[in-house]
């Protein structure tokens, strides 16, 4: 009988019938283990993502049970595929309409840097228009690599400060991309 791993409890004070930690820890655990992705799948990497969502490389066991196509209810914007320059404003709009806290995962070579399409219509990497948290290189990356990328986003989500969106660093980052 295989043993099942569940999330470890963070450091805190235990008593009879209660457990006390800080908000940061609890909210960090909650957020990192329930990252709802927005699959912005354009090309072949979208197919790899479909494989990752399947039962063999299950992404739902990492908490990404509900992919949403509306940015309002998504935590993680996964950009998978070649983004043309004509698609760029649309991607930016979708990113802006996501509610904080939000993370971006650039999957594949095309989303990270334009990939093999070093060409006039292709946007050479989505980090030209939106801030990216994790890059998953590959053409296409294997599902295991995508899961590794997702685990790194989980790490970021667990350690994110609760008031990050009001911090100066975040405001500067947003204004450097011309996002209000």
């Amino acid at each position: 009988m295989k043993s099942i791993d569940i999330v470890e409890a963070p450091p805190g004070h235990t008593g009879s019938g209660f457990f006390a930690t800080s908000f940061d820890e609890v909210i960090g655990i909650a957020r990192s283990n329930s990252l709802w992705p927005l699959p912005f799948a354009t090309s072949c990497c979208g197919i790899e993502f479909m494989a990752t969502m399947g039962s063999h490389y299950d992404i739902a066991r990492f908490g990404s049970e509900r992919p949403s196509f509306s940015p309002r209810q998504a935590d993680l914007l996964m950009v998978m595929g070649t983004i043309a320059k004509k698609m760029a404003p649309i991607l930016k709009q979708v990113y802006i309409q996501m509610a904080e806290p939000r993370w971006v995962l650039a999957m594949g070579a095309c989303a990270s840097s334009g990939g093999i399409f070093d060409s006039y219509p292709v946007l050479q990497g989505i980090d030209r228009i939106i801030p990216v948290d994790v890059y998953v290189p590959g053409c296409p990356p294997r599902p295991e690599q995508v899961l590794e990328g997702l685990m790194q986003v989980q790490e970021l989500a667990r350690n994110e400060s609760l008031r990050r969106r009001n911090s100066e660093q975040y405001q500067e980052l947003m204004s450097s991309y011309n996002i209000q």
Partner: protein
Amino acid sequence: MLTNQEVAEELLREFEEDVYGFEEPYGMLTLTTTRGQIIPMLEFLFKHKKFQANFLTDLTGVHYPDTPGLEYAVVYHLHSLVHNFRLRIKVFLAEGDERIPTATTVYESANWMERETYDFFGIQFEGHPNLIRILNIEEMDYFPMRRQYPLEDTTREDKTDALFGR
């Protein structure tokens, strides 16, 4: 069963000296005509009782910078669904005079295909209802498929010529 010979003879009979350059690359009849006769020819082939070329498979352009006076070619691929017969018509245009009447009066599908040809080659289709860019961004001010423009994205700073042996 339509043969290339039959269609070629019919076209010669109808248009006499305005069709020329008959070829058969890989068995597909290819001919060249002039800008003034292209729409009458499309209509003739569309409405012909026997041929009924009722499907415009493709409408595209080519840029030949090395032949002065015949730089731009607009190529029409016609298909007769009734007879399973394919035909290719080329029209050559000179540099600086890239105008040609639109085929949307004969085939509705020419609408987007002409927009694409305009977007990439800059060929003006006279009489087109909405000739604007279709695949590239609206702010683009050049026609990318013309041979003088590079294929690569020009905004990259991290590529050096040494990497590519230049």
